[in-house]
């Protein structure tokens, strides 16, 4: 009864995460490969993601109302509700990136995109890993993801500093610079949210709150 | 000492006293009968007809007579009694008929047995023209036994859990199917108990068969239901009051009593064994 429904719910969340992952990838590849069609795809996906977010939330509520789940079942449903929110936020950030990327395609910025590319790659990896960790309830992997957040943070700082030093001598490019920065900032935010996903997986698997790279409280 | 303990001890011992008194009566009763009648018992006694004014020979005809009267009267009373009980418990309509039946049963249960005898004489012997015969006697005794059987059957049917009836009806059975397939089979052991009690009563009654079936002496064994017949209880009475050779006949009377007791106990034992076997298969 409940078990089957939880399996279906988990599957739903994974599908949502794949949609969001595609949004992030498309938003960046559209910029990198100068493909405006990819950016338009992000807009389409956003509608799907929003609809699915509501479905997942209603399913979670119904399961709690009808089944009074306890222990791990309860943790799973509550965390899926949180992760649902997180994924929707990631989707919004990916959409913001797509809009910035569209601007940049029309007003290119003369700076190398290499750092941004690395950042994108690393962020998408973090998201993929956090989803895999969720599927298999891999606590070790989850904790690892939280540690990798630093890499993305550093790249974000680097890009910011570079933009600041480069943009001052060439004012007309300031808007493009802002958009570049926006993309970078959003990617950093996405990476951060990916670590939240990982923390939630630890709670599901072990009932321990793992935040800011350490165990806060032992609920056992 | 504790006042309550004393009261309890006194109570228990009074009960023991009464049980002892009752047991003494029973034991004395059996002893007297068996002591005075035991020496007359022999194979000849049981299988032969009486000879020479009942001073010699046996009481075989009386045994046969009592046996048939008992079997036929129960055979008549049992189905009628059970059907009446089914009517009272399951159908119970119309209400006026139910009231009449109940009044009838309660009244019949209290009627003195000699009046049954007169009733049997008037109705079966004279009105139906069955004459003094096993048939008249069996019918009379049957009417006597009915109240007991009806009451026992009614109680037996009421004891069957309502669940069974509900379950049967819910599966689409009619009331009749429910009674035949579920209720009666379940009530059977307790119905048999009522029957056992009736057997004892019927075998030993003298007054109802006085004018309807019994005769003091007949040479031949009964060949049909319309023959008159010798019976054990009447034989005892006759020997004790009208016999001409008291010295030899009194022991024979006691011997007859022993046989009558034995017969009743035997038939009851058979019925008990049957009931035991049914209960064993039941397991609930």
């Amino acid at each position, binding site marked *: *009864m*409940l078990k089957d429904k939880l399996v279906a719910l988990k599957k739903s969340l994974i599908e949502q995460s794949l949609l969001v992952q595609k949004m992030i990838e498309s938003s960046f590849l559209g910029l990198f490969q100068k493909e405006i069609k990819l950016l338009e795809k992000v807009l389409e996906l956003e509608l799907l993601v929003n609809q699915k977010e509501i479905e997942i939330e209603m399913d979670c*509520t*119904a399961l709690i*109302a*009808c*089944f*009074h789940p306890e222990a791990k079942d309860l943790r799973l449903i509550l965390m899926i509700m949180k992760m649902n929110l997180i994924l929707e936020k990631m989707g919004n950030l990916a959409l913001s990136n797509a809009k910035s990327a569209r601007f940049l395609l029309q007003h290119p910025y003369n700076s190398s995109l290499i750092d941004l590319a690395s950042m994108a790659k690393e962020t998408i990896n973090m998201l993929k890993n956090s989803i895999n960790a969720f599927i298999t309830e891999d606590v070790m992997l989850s904790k690892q993801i939280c540690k990798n957040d630093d890499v993305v943070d550093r790249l974000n700082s680097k890009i910011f500093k570079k933009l600041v030093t480069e943009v001052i001598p060439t004012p007309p490019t300031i808007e493009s610079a802002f958009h570049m920065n926006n993309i970078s900032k959003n990617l950093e935010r996405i990476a951060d949210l990916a670590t939240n996903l990982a923390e939630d997986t630890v709670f599901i698997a072990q009932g321990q709150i793992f935040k800011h790279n350490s165990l806060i409280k032992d609920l056992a | 000492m504790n006042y309550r303990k004393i009261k309890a001890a006194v109570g228990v011992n009074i009960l023991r006293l009464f049980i002892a008194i009752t047991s003494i009566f029973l034991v004395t009763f059996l002893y007297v009968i068996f002591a005075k009648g035991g020496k007359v018992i022999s194979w000849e006694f049981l299988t032969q007809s009486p000879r020479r004014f009942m001073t010699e020979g046996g009481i075989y005809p009386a045994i046969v007579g009592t046996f048939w009267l008992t079997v036929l009267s129960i055979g008549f009373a049992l189905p009628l009694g059970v059907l009446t009980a089914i009517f009272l418990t399951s159908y119970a309509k119309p209400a006026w008929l139910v009231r009449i039946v109940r009044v009838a049963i309660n009244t019949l249960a209290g009627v003195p047995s000699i009046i049954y005898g007169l009733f049997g004489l008037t109705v079966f012997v004279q009105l139906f023209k069955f004459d003094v015969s096993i048939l008249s006697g069996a019918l009379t005794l049957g009417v006597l036994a009915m109240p007991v059987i009806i009451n026992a059957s009614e109680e037996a049917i009421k004891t069957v*859990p309502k*669940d*069974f009836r*509900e*379950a*049967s*009806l*819910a*599966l*689409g*059975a*009619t009331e009749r*199917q429910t009674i035949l*397939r*579920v209720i009666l*089979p*379940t009530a059977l052991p307790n119905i048999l108990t009522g029957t056992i009690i009736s057997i004892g009563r019927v075998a030993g009654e003298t007054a109802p068969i006085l004018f309807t079936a019994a005769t003091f002496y007949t040479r031949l064994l009964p060949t049909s239901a319309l023959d008159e017949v010798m019976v054990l209880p009447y034989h005892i009475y006759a020997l004790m009051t009208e016999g001409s050779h008291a010295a030899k006949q009194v022991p024979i009377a006691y011997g007859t009593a022993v046989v009558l007791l034995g017969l009743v106990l035997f038939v009851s034992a058979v019925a008990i064994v049957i009931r035991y076997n049914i209960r064993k*298969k*039941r*397991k*609930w």
Partner: protein
Amino acid sequence: MVNNAHITTEDLNLWFGDNHVLKDVNIPVYDKKVTALIGPSGCGKSTLLRCFNRMNDLIPETKITGKVHLYNKNIYESKTDVTSVRTKVGMVFQKPNPFPKSIFKNVAYGLNIRGISKSKINKIVEKSLKDAWLWDEVKDRLHESAFSLSGGQQQRLCIARAMANDPEIILLDEPTSALDPQSTAKIEELCLALKDKVTILIVTHNIAQAGRISDFTAFMYLGEMVEFGETKKMFTVPKDKRTEAYLSGVFG
């Protein structure tokens, strides 16, 4: 979701003597779904259940107005053959009540009373016991007394017995309240499996049970049908304040 309701009540009212027990009840029972009747003690849910197979007829001084439709037929029409209605509507009671007969004879009872041939009976008995998840446990002792089974097994036997008649709908009157938790869980899962074969209407005083197994729920209070709807919607956002109060345990 397209649902068909071929079993419904229409303005159903019932009195036990002067006591107005069911008031203008209109309820759809959807095909091949589990519908639960919930409500506090004395609200009339068992009485309503028993209207579907006319078992209330057994209680004296019962008066009924309104209709109960069973696939195009109003079963309260005069001249209705009640025994044939009861063959199409199976019932399982609160306390398991197998007959004092063998396991086989219990399941075959409904078939025997209709004079079904022996060869068919064997097959139907096996199928019914399999449907009730009891076959493996009893296949080697079909002729032993039904009372040699445990409480949970006896209840499954009663379910098999009802299934043997191939009914349109099975009525369950608090079927697990006399059972231990494991047997209860087994019967709940059995209901979920059975609903593909037969419509199920279940009375339960256990709200969580209704949440676990039912597709639709009807909440009754003081003889009225207060609310009816999809279980997950009703349990999340009840429309009536009384339903809300009952579900949150304010009374019951």
